C-alpha cells in the first residue's frame, strides 16, 4: 500500500529581475519585473511502506523543495500529496509525530545543548515512553558507536559525529516515514561510508519508509532499490537503479590510449568522440558498432591500449539529466 502519494505536485518561486547598475536599481524602485521559477513541476509518484527510495538530481533540481512539501514545511503551488493519508502541509499533530526529516545542511539539534539533552527534549516533545526511549537510544548509540560524544555540546562535535546524532534524534520516536536530505553532504569519504553503513544497518530494522536525496551515487547504490530522478523540477526517471543503465545499455564507452600525442582536430572528426587528453581519448559508441569501431581505430591510429566499458552510472544519470535517454 502506498504510504506516500504525490500527484502533479508543483511549486513555483517568484522573484524579481533586477536591471544592472545604479539606474537599474533606481528603476527597480518603481517597476520590478516578476519572474517565476518552476522549482518542482507536476511531479507524481507513489512510495510503498517500507521502501527506500533515492531521490536524485543536480543542484536546484527541486529535491529539497519536494521533501519540504512532503514534510509539511512548505506549501505547494498546486497539486496534491498524501503522506500516511495526511496532507503534509496541514501539519496535523498526528502527522508530525510519525515523520522525521534530517537535512544535511541544517541542524535539527540545539547547538548549545549536549546531544543527549536534545534527545531527551525530543523524548518529551514526541511523548515517547521512558522505557521505549531507553531501548531505542541504547540500540542506536551502540550501533553508531558514539556513546562518548553524548554529553558533548553539539556545536563542538565534528560534522560526521553531528550527522550521526542528527540521525539518532530523527529515529528516537520510530517514525514511519523518514526524509533524509543530503545526509552525507560535506562529509569526508570515511564518514560518508560510515553514515551509509549505518543507514544500511537501520534498513529493515525499524520498517521505516525512507526517502533519501543525495548527490553521491554511492549513497543511492548502496541503499535504494528504486530511484526517482528529477531535473529542472520534472521527474525524468522512476524505476530500479539498474534501469538507469539499461536505458543506456545500447551505448558503450571506448577508451583509447595512444603511443603519441594526436591532434584534437583529427580525433574530434571521428564520430562518437567525447573527450581527449594528451595521449588518450574517449568515444561513445553504439553497442552493435563496437567491434567495427575498435577494429577501425586499431588500424588507423597508434593505439597501445583499448578498453570497452558500460556507461558508468554517474554518466548514465548525467545523460538522463540532460534528457538524452528517455524513460523506460
Amino acid at each position, binding site marked *: 500500500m502506498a504510504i506516500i502519494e504525490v500527484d502533479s505536485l508543483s511549486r513555483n*518561486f517568484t522573484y524579481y529581475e533586477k536591471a544592472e547598475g545604479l539606474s537599474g536599481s533606481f528603476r527597480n524602485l518603481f517597476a520590478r519585473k516578476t519572474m517565476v521559477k518552476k522549482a518542482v513541476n507536476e511531479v507524481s509518484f507513489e512510495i510503498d511502506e517500507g521502501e527506500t527510495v533515492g531521490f536524485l538530481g543536480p543542484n536546484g533540481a527541486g529535491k529539497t*523543495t519536494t521533501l*519540504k512539501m512532503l*514534510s*509539511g*514545511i*512548505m*506549501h505547494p503551488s498546486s497539486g496534491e500529496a498524501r503522506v500516511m493519508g495526511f496532507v503534509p*502541509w496541514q*501539519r496535523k*499533530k498526528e502527522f*508530525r*509525530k510519525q*515523520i*522525521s*526529516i534530517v*537535512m544535511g545542511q*541544517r*541542524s*535539527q539539534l*540545539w547547538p*548549545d*545543548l549536549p546531544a543527549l*539533552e536534545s534527545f*531527551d*527534549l*525530543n523524548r*518529551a*516533545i*514526541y*511523548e515517547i515512553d521512558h522505557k521505549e526511549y531507553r531501548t531505542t537510544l541504547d540500540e542506536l548509540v551502540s550501533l553508531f558507536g558514539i556513546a562518548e560524544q553524548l554529553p558533548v555540546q553539539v556545536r563542538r562535535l565534528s560534522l560526521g559525529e553531528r550527522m550521526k546524532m542528527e540521525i539518532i534524534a530523527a529515529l528516537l520516536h520510530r517514525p514511519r516515514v523518514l526524509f533524509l536530505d543530503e545526509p552525507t553532504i560535506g562529509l569526508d569519504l570515511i564518514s560518508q561510508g560510515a553514515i551509509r553503513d549505518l543507514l544500511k544497518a537501520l534498513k529493515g530494522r525499524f520498517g521505516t519508509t525512507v526517502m533519501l536525496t543525495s548527490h553521491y551515487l554511492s549513497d543511492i547504490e548502496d541503499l535504494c532499490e528504486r530511484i526517482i530522478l528529477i531535473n529542472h523540477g520534472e521527474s525524468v526517471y522512476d524505476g530500479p537503479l539498474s534501469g538507469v543503465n539499461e536505458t543506456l545499455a545500447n551505448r558503450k564507452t571506448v577508451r583509447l590510449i595512444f603511443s603519441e600525442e594526436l591532434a584534437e582536430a583529427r580525433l574530434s572528426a571521428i564520430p562518437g568522440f567525447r573527450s581527449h587528453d594528451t595521449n588518450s581519448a574517449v568515444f561513445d559508441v553504439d553497442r552493435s558498432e563496437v567491434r567495427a569501431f575498435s577494429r577501425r581505430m586499431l588500424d588507423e591510429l597508434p593505439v597501445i591500449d583499448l578498453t570497452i566499458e558500460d556507461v558508468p552510472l554517474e554518466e548514465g544519470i548525467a545523460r538522463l539529466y540532460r534528457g538524452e535517454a528517455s524513460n523506460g
Partner: protein
Amino acid sequence: MAEPHFAGKYAKCLGTGFRAALEYRVNFFLSVAGAIAPVVIQTALWIVIYGDDPASSLFGFTFPQMVAYTVIAQLVSRLVRTGFEYDVNADIKSGSLDRYLVKPIGYFGFRLFSFIGDKIVQTAFMGVLLVLAVWILAMALGFVVSAGAFVLFVLSLALAFVLNFLVFWCVALVGFWLTEIGYLFEAVRIVIIAASGGILPLAVLGPDASSVLTLLPFRFTIQFPTELLTGRIPPESVAGSFGIAIFWMVVLAALGQVIWSRGIRRFAAVGS
C-alpha cells in the same frame, strides 16, 4: 496519558531555559552591573533637583521614594528584559524554524516556557540583589517593605514576564516580513522601557501622558511591580490594575496568534 505528556513537554522547555540561564549567568550579572551607572546618575540628578528639602514632594515622590523607585525600577527592567526575539528572528531568517514545524510542539509554547525557565533562574539571582537593595534603602532612607507588598510584587513580576514576552513576541514576528530587524528590537525596547516607567516614573511625564500610559500594557512590565514593592499603589486599586494587565495579556496573545498564523503562511509560501 495525553495530559501529563503534554505538560511534560513544556516543563522540559522550561528546564532548557533554566539550564541556559545557569550557563549564561555571567551575561545576566553583567547586565545587572550595567544598572549601576544609570542609578548613580539619576540619584545625583535627584539630589540636585530636591536640593535642601528631601521631604518635599516632586511628582508625588519624596526624595527617598524617588531613589527607591530608581533603584528598584532599574533592577526590575533588567529582570524582565527579553532576548528571545533575536532567536525567533534568527529561526525565521535562517529557516531553522523548520525544525520546530515538523515536530509535534508549538513554537510559541516552546519559546514562552524556555523564557520563563530562564527568568526563574534570573529571579533567584536577582532576589538576592533585591533583598540587598531593600536592606540598604531601609538603612539609608528608612524605606520599608511589607510582606503583603512583597507577595503582590512577586505576582506582578510573573505577570510582567508574560506581558513583556507577548510584546516582544509580536515584535519578533515582524521578522516574517522584514529580514533585518535587530535595530527595530532596540528602538522598540527603548521606547517601551520609557513607556513602562523604567527610566523615570510615568508621573514625571505630566498628567496627560501618564494617564494615557497608565492604560497601556507597558507600565505593567516595570512601573507596576516597582510601585507595588514600594507600597505606592493604593490597596483598593490593586485588583483593578491586575485586571487591566490580564486584559492586555489576552489582547496581546490574540494579536500574536493572528500575526503568527499570517507569518507562518508566508513562511511556508516563500520558503527559505
